[in-house]
């Protein structure tokens, strides 16, 4: 049984050909058997999952529920779940159990999804490989010697491995789209403000956005429909009438204008990746889309601007982990300073400490203007360039990542090369735009992802194009198992 299509599973569940309990048992069994090899999960919740599955079966038996009722799901371990540990991949929160549940999770639970566990991630979402986890690295099901990408690597790997049909990730600079690309699945970062951040442990508040990860655009549309919407507990969430993102799929993409930024296809892009993306774009062209050359001249500034803004916010957001009220506390502190220093030094991993130090530095007296303020100016510039291009085209397309999954350990001692794998994704977060990564082809047995960026709150248009592409191709249906 393939458990990777929400739409298909929902049909089986409604016809009572499959019960949610059966489906959930299957997912749990796969999760447990693959855990030693892939390490996708930080916590599995079999008892809770079966309880939720039984409730879902009762709803289904009464003919109630939504397309998501009874569908197994896993949440990146950054989403707080009342009663179940939320570690954020960190020793700091190894024993932390929140007394509240993230709004996005609450909404998916109300829709009837079944949580089977919490997925592995780079500590506090800081990383692009899921190697920086207190619980050990997660692996890519396409090649277990390679990273799944990150920081939502556990969610991407679990969906790609066929453990679960759906998962949630968060995306601050590409943490949904980059692992989706490296694992060959579909991952959507919504417009900033569309999905509530309440209950999502903050990395960089002005950039963080939760989003769905699944096999197909249609499935991510179903998940987004349940997750999105105004939340009074998040001041940055946007009041908009609720929409059904799956209702208008497939849409017509005839005449859809797709812009190809010159900067995303320049000489330093691996020509083989460029070839995969160009081939994928030609499929869209055949379906009636119109390709246009566009330019986003400040793209090269996005990585430095992103790392200043994101780390400045992170250095402040992570101050609350001080060993005083909850979380890791060092043994026998001598005094207050010792308590702070050792709790944070021992509780945080290297990458988190590095980022806190950089973030603290760029906000310091004398450096603020040169770094933080200048980065904010670059951010406005990048946003304005996107806005201007999106007046002429409906979507912007390009590779999600400049390469495929890299070997575990290859970049862990070279943070800058790690940061550069986010080169095509961070500018989208700086602008607050929605974007999707969809499987666009294969290179040497590894998936290649294509990114489609849309205008603010134009998730539906992005999903229509992605769905149209997935009607024409089968890249999104490929799984690591196919190769035998």
């Amino acid at each position, binding site marked *: 049984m393939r458990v990777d299509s929400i739409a298909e599973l929902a049909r089986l569940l409604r016809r009572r050909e499959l019960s949610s309990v059966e489906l959930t048992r299957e997912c749990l069994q796969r999760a447990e058997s693959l855990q030693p090899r892939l390490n996708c999960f930080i916590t599995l919740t079999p008892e809770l999952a079966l309880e939720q599955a039984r409730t879902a079966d009762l709803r289904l038996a009464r003919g109630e529920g939504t397309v998501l009722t009874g569908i197994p799901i896993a949440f990146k371990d950054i989403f*707080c779940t009342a009663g179940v540990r939320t570690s954020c991949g960190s020793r700091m929160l190894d024993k932390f159990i929140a*007394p*509240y549940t993230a709004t996005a999770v609450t909404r998916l639970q109300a829709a009837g999804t079944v949580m089977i566990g919490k997925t592995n991630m780079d500590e506090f979402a800081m990383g692009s490989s899921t190697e920086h986890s207190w619980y050990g690295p997660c692996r890519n099901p396409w090649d277990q010697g390679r990273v799944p990408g990150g920081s939502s690597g556990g969610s991407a790997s679990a969906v790609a491995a066929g453990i679960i049909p759906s998962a949630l990730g968060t995306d601050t600079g590409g943490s949904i789209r980059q692992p989706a690309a490296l694992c060959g699945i579909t991952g959507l970062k919504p417009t900033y403000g569309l999905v509530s951040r309440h209950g*999502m442990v903050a990395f960089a508040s002005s950039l963080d956005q939760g989003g769905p990860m699944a096999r197909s655009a249609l499935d991510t549309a179903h998940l987004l429909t349940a997750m999105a919407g105004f939340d009074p*507990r998040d001041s*940055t969430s946007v009041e908009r009438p609720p929409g059904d993102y799956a209702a208008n799929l497939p849409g017509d993409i005839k005449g859809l204008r797709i812009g190809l930024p010159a900067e995303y296809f320049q000489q330093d892009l691996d020509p083989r990746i460029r070839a995969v993306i160009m081939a994928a774009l030609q499929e869209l062209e055949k379906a009636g889309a119109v390709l246009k050359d566009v330019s986003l001249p400040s793209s090269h500034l996005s990585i430095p601007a992103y790392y200043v803004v994101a780390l*400045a916010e992170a250095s402040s957001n992570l101050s609350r982990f*001080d060993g005083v009220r909850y979380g890791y506390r060092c043994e026998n502190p001598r005094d207050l300073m010792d308590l702070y220093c050792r709790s944070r030094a021992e509780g945080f991993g290297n990458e988190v400490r590095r980022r806190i130090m950089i973030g603290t530095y760029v906000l*310091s007296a004398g450096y603020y203007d040169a770094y933080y303020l200048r980065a904010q100016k670059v951010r406005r510039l990048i946003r304005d360039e996107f806005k201007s291009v999106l007046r002429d085209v409906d979507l912007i397309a390009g590779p999600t990542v400049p390469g495929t999954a890299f070997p575990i350990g290859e970049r862990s001692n070279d943070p800058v090369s790690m940061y550069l794998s986010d080169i095509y994704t961070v500018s989208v977060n700086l602008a607050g735009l929605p974007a999707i990564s969809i499987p666009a082809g294969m290179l040497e047995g590894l998936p290649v992802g294509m990114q489609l960026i849309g205008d603010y709150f134009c998730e539906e248009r992005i999903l229509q194009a992605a769905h149209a592409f997935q009607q024409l191709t089968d890249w999104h249906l490929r799984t690591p198992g196919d190769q035998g």
Partner: protein
Amino acid sequence: MNTRWETVIGLELHIQLATRSKLFSGAATAFGATPNTQACAVDLALPGVLPVLNEAAVRMAISFGLAINAEIAPRSVFARKNYFYPDLPKGYQISQFELPIVARGTVELRLPDGESKAIRVTRAHLEEDAGKSLHEGMQGCTGIDLNRAGTPLIEVVSEPDMRSAAEAVAYMRYVHALVCDLGISDGNMQEGSFRCDANVSLRPAGSTTLGTRTETKNLNSFRFVEQAIEYEVERQRELLERGAQVLQETRLYDPDRNETRPLRSKEEAFDYRYFPDPDLLPVEITPQLIADIRARMPELRKTRAARFVERYALPERDAEQLSATSSLAVYFESTVARSGGDPKLAANWIITELLGALNREQKTLQQSPVDPDRLAGLLRRVGDGTVSGRMAKQVFEAMWGGAGTADEIIRSQGLEQVSDTGLIEELVDGVIAANPEQVEQFRAGKEKVLAFLVGQVMKQSKGKANPQQVSQIMTAKLRG
């Protein structure tokens, strides 16, 4: 050679706003609850929870701005002030930095010598309070109570416009009365609702540049502000006069020893790494909102005092005294309305008898056993001559003790003034008959004895006879 020094003072006032819930969470703000029972996930800074601005606090800050004729920023921004401290759960305080909600106001003071002086207010911004560290009864450990964490404050920063401790206290008192009047703070200084940091420096008289200042923190009474400033002025003067330098530093006032002590120097000052809080949107204030708040604002002291002079023909001094707080002003106006009589009489009774009694028993106006209704009842009887002024004081004391209304007391204790001419004539005749010697003296021109004779009548009437009437009748009989 003796230099004359000019004292320069600027104050920062931290004023707790009287909202029911906190600035960014739904937890209650009531004082005195069991530690950590009024701290929700947001106040505890658990991961993933977010601040949501309390609109009532914004309205209160705006009404303060309007009351000091300040500019209300159409767009203000919350910023994070980053530092580590155990009672600061997030590791940062949400405050306002570059764009405060209120800027450039003025306070018109009347100084003790009767002169008036304008003090400029640089800014007033919204911020959240920290929790409290508890050291007593903790067996050598430090306890943290986060009930206060997140309570809304406005920080009101003045220009260095004050020139003496007395001026600083006058300014502080003015702002204190103002926020109480506006109903935006309970002003309770023991509970920390109204705290002051004082910036003090000295410069040679006539100089226009500012000297090096010190900041003395956390002064929570008018007296401490006065004493701390006076101490600091003396300390700095002594340093400067022997050619030493004042260090720019933060100091702490110790009221037990009446001295200030250094807390941290400029070099040790924190780098707060302020930046706009990305969890909160800028606060946009529309002219409609400002108009709405202005329309609902209570009458302020100055306007009220002017109105009292105008409407009730009170002397300026009485009018100012009765307008000092809105509750006293309301008391006065309802007493006048209910007594239907002379406002000046009501003013005198409130200022002398009522405030005297409250002061004597350390009670607040709200705790007064005599309400405007009862006081008006007594003033009606004074007005229509039922009781004499002296008797009225006796009735007031009885009312204060809870003996009932003025009429009930007058009736039960038989305190009505006797104005029955026949009765008074009888008593006068008796006194004349019994004191021939004094009568003789009076008739011989020694008119002073009249008081003695009238006193005798009053004594025999047990104080109830109308003294004017007694005096008239006595004089007539002696002359006749």
